[in-house]
């Protein structure tokens, strides 16, 4: 059990037009090639050209997403900033590696080095909002966002803080796409993606529409461990499979991993709605953020986004949402969420 995270606002920059309208009402964009690429917002209203020049592709969207997320909640200074990213600013990492080679370790521009640091976005958000606070970054692949969430819940639990800005950010580059291709990431149906997601959460309910009630993490689990872990999760919250109104799964079209999601789907009644999201975002370390964003927005707007429906159920009233994502069989994460309306 964790101290619940009451989500007051959620924002997403993704390969869909999810940012300005903060929903999925716009026409769905289909993929070009084998990569979902995120849609960058108009930066003019946020930064001067000089500021923009100093920032990289990923820190730009990261900061803009954080700004709008806090604005939606009417908060200027959160009490903590926690993020997760699998790879951080890959463009900067690569740029600095190329510069080292090209200039043979001579005089180099330090900017890419600084921005390649995984916590540089956190620092920028802190600077932009003048937030003196708890500030940390988790960099553990498919667990990255979840540890940011869990740590925030722990900080709520011991009364260190009463609210937090929590987020995830990821980008793909041409070079890293090739590396992941060689590692076999795309050969069985999964499509590459990227995106940035921020959530403002409070310890108390205060008009939030969705609460993250629990988070479970398993590394390379056996199917039995997942089954047992889910049963324990549900019973510890005094609910059972029939209480799940919406099941959100991280299916990524890679058939090698469908059995994990089927294991959950098979337990659920036919009235439960089944939702997926990676067909719109692509697959990446922190893709779960897109699914959590969708859950938060659907709870707020009290409707299911039709483009996410994998199998329509019959429940009108949405109370309990079970979210299950796994990243290439290694990191498995489960969120139990509850609408508060």
């Amino acid at each position, binding site marked *: 059990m964790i101290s619940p995270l009451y989500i007051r606002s959620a924002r997403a920059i993704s390969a869909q037009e999810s940012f300005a309208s903060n929903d999925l009402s716009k026409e769905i964009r289909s993929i070009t090639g084998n990569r979902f690429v995120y849609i960058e917002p108009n930066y003019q209203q946020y930064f001067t050209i000089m500021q923009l020049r100093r920032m990289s592709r990923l820190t730009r969207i990261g900061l803009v997403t954080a700004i709008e997320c806090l604005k939606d909640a009417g908060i200027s200074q959160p009490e903590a900033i926690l993020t997760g990213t699998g790879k951080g600013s890959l463009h900067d990492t690569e740029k600095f590696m190329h510069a080292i080679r090209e200039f043979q370790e001579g005089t180099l521009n330090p900017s890419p080095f600084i921005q390649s640091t995984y916590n540089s976005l956190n620092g920028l958000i802190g*600077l932009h909002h003048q937030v003196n606070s708890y500030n940390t970054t988790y960099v553990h692949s498919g667990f990255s966002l979840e540890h940011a969430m869990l740590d925030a819940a722990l900080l709520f639990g011991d009364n260190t803080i009463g609210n937090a800005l929590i987020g995830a950010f990821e980008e793909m580059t041409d070079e890293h796409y090739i590396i992941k291709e060689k590692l076999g990431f795309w050969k069985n149906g999964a499509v590459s993606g990227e995106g940035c997601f921020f959530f403002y959460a409070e310890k108390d309910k205060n008009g939030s529409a969705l609460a993250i009630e629990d988070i479970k993490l398993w590394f390379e689990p056996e199917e039995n461990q997942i089954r047992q872990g889910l049963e324990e999760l549900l019973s510890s919250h005094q609910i059972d499979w029939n209480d799940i109104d919406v099941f959100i799964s991280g299916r990524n079209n890679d058939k090698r991993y469908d059995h994990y999601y089927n294991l959950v789907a098979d337990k659920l009644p036919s009235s439960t709605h089944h939702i997926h999201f990676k067909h719109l975002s692509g697959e990446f370390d922190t893709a779960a953020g897109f699914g959590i964003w969708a859950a938060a927005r659907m709870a707020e707007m009290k409707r299911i986004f039709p483009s996410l429906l994998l199998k329509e159920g019959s429940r009108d009233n949405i109370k309990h949402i079970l979210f299950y994502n796994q990243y290439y069989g290694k990191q498995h994460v489960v969120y139990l969420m509850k609408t508060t309306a």
Partner: protein
Amino acid sequence: MSSVFITGIGIVSALGIGVRAQREKLVAGISGLKSAHFLNSIHKTEFPFGEVPYTTVELFSTLSDRGELQQSRLQALGALALEECLSSCSTPSGFIRQGLINATTVGGMTDIEDRYFELIQPGILDGDTDWASGLDCATGTEHLARRFGLTDFMTTISTACSSSANALQYGARLLQQGHLDRVVCGGVDSLTRFTVNGFNSLKNLDKELCKPFDVNRNGLNLGEGAAYLVLETEKGLQLSGNHPLAILSGYSNFNEAFHPTAPSPEGVGAFEAMKRAIEKSGLEPAAISYINAHGTATLNNDESEGRAIRRLFGDSIPPFSSTKEYTGHTLAAAGAIEAVFSVLSLHHQEIYPGLNFTTPIPGIELVPAKEYQQTTLNHILSNSFGFGGNNASLLFSKYD
């Protein structure tokens, strides 16, 4: 909140492999800084480095069981520290929930950077590309977790130079709120051309031995290493029968939101991090017996940290020193390495001498401890400050 006990420690640094090797050098005031041998960089003899004095192959041959670890300097360093850490205390019998909270700044960059440009050639698909996964920070942690049976719960933190100090804090919270019974926390970084050129581009590297808190300090020396600590609760102690080496009595993480790479001159972040760590323990600043300073010897850090120490402790400043003159700045490993040094100081009731110091910074006038001394130590504060304004302080207390 329940107490967090430290029951095991393991370490590798430029001072050598293992706790004993570290303490011998620290007591004798012998630095591990010199020209690098194994680092693949044109700068390897231009600057002093805290390089672990063995090849990666030699490091692996020192391990009792290599298991499925990748051919990686990062993983070799991490495994040596973890092996010592876990063998220095007993594993509880019965079912316990345990975890590994690791920290790193660039993951397996050392192991990848020489082959990176071969890796990104589209056409070439050689047979075994598993090594390429080392670029990911999670990969090292996962290989170490598998090797040491810590796969139940794991993560990796990267907050620049405060990374492993934050790993200890997260571990402590997980214990205190009952999510785990036992947690291994620490960090690892190996020297890389990437990081060396990064700090060089920031003009932060001294060509001479670093001189923390000296008016003529001129930058830091980079190092590499790994350190891990076993944290247990009271309940964990009952199950394991371990005798605590020290208590983690306070901790704090505070971002000062001043500048992407430089601390505020007055040391707001350093001040708040130290103050809050002490407050969390329920102690007063006067109770602090010694400070293991961040003390990187950069112009900015030592001035702001010095001012923060002045402001927090007033005229009764406890003995302090930086151990960066021994190990170099080991980045993500620094917080854990200095946590191990703090535990050693408490356990042996001794202060290790600061090196290379002659003249204090005008206006701050702080003089680090320069001689080895045995003295009564009850509470030690350890600072780790990083890029992005990330400041962390840990407070270690003697266990009676």
